[in-house]
């Protein structure tokens, strides 16, 4: 049995943005798994005036044997959509007159991401059917097919959590399990998209019909400045703690360490922390985050 290993996957390594945030990224594969089905991104946008964060958790069980691809596409398509959105959010900045249009765009984003993900999954499945070549549906004498051959995309199933952060606003979206935590200036953790404790390992998924309808969304303007710490993680992290408070304490502690020891120190320790968590949850464990950098150090 192999232990957890640090994995980078196709997710981009966090760059050091010239803006007000330093980015964190870490991932380990679950104990005894051949490879991780998690994917992530932490990306500075608009010369560092905005950040795009995303994690996706491919379901990983036998019924979802291509979910690593599903997670990869989820992050890639979200990033493509969110990067454009982030540039606009950075341009609007503190101009509240521009926020309604941003919110409207934020409402449309889940459907666009889900549609792009669905297109890629269908394209892939058409070229390489997950369940073998399907029989062609019967056509009548005019050549009309009664039932279109709709592929089952369960093999590609994945969750998705994404966020766009600027100095003035936060937009975030979540489909399925996993966590987004904001740690405010007072060290208080907030989970704006929490839907309560999960039972077992059930989750909503991009492979369901019209998944955007189940995508939760949140936005908030920052009147007192951006939160010093925004973290996104797959459920492998929170499920490794004996209770939810333990997970929140971890998030708060990570923010405090980043403030006290610097983000580079936290980044270097992150793989070990995640590996320890993966031993308890048994699952792939991935975390990305944006940590506010004090102005004098920028």
């Amino acid at each position: 049995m192999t232990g957890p290993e640090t994995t980078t996957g196709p997710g981009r390594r966090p760059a050091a943005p010239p803006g007000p945030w330093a980015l964190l990224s870490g991932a380990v594969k679950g104990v005894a798994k051949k490879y991780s089905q998690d994917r992530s991104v932490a990306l500075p946008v608009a010369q560092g005036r905005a950040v795009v964060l995303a994690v996706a958790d491919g379901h990983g069980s036998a019924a979802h044997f291509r979910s690593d691809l599903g997670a990869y596409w989820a992050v890639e398509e979200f990033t493509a959509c969110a990067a454009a959105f982030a540039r606009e959010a950075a341009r609007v900045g503190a101009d509240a007159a521009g926020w309604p249009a941003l919110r409207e765009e934020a409402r449309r984003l889940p459907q666009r991401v889900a549609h792009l993900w669905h297109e890629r999954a269908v394209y892939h499945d058409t070229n390489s059917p997950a369940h073998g070549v399907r029989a062609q549906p019967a056509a009548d004498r005019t050549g009309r097919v009664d039932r279109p051959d709709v592929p089952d995309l369960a093999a590609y199933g994945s969750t998705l959590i994404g966020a766009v952060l600027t100095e003035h606003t936060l937009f975030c979206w979540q489909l399925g399990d996993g966590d987004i935590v904001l740690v405010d200036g007072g060290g208080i953790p907030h989970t704006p998209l929490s839907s309560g404790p999960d039972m077992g390992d059930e989750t909503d998924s991009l492979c369901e019909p019209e998944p955007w309808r189940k995508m939760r969304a949140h936005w908030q303007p920052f009147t007192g400045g951006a939160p010093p710490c925004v973290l996104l993680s797959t459920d492998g992290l929170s499920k490794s703690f004996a209770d939810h408070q333990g997970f929140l304490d971890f998030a708060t502690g990570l923010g405090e360490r980043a403030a006290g020891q610097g983000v580079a120190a936290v980044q270097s320790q992150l793989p070990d922390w995640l590996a320890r968590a993966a031993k308890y949850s048994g699952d792939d464990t991935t975390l990305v985050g944006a940590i506010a950098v004090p102005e004098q150090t920028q």
Partner: protein
Amino acid sequence: MASRPVHFIWMLDCSGSMGVNGKIGELNFAIREAIPEMQQAAQSNPAASLLVRAITFASGASWHVGEPTPVDRFSWEDVHIYGGTDMGAAFKLAAGALQTPPMPQRALPPVLALASDGQPTDDWRAGLRAIDGTPWGKRAVRVAVAIGDDADKSMLKEFLGNPELEPLQAKNPRQLAAAIRWMSTAVVKDASTPKVDDGAKPATPLDVPSMTKGEDDIW
């Protein structure tokens, strides 16, 4: 940090008919023999903590092992026959344990393992509804073994709650031992592996053991 619990509940038929041709003795033997392998299966996944309990049912139902016991400390005290086949009462006992609380929300799906050789003599459907009405009951991994030809296989299939699954059939001691061993190991491994249940049925049900052929059926 802590691993997540997997609650495993045996539900064992101790009706009078289990005394015929030594069925109850073979059941006790099979469970006792399966414990080391169950412990090995649990050890293979350190991310899950296997906790075992047992219910017996005959005239009424009661907890034979009421405390969720870590599998590495689990030992088997023989069960004995005592009357009818009040399976519904056993289901209601299990349903009480599947509520949250007492069962934590942070857990892996529990396992309900049922062994019976006859027809229920009480309102088993009411008991099954009670299980289905609990948050963990709906999500439980369910397995069943029909001991002998008189077991109500259609009822056991309904308990399984998945048209793709069939109850195991044990017609002699060797088959019963194989079924109990499979319930104690393969099912535990499956239940304690983090996975997603997005409402879709699994592509392939658990590999069920091939029961030994060419032996005399004595039950």
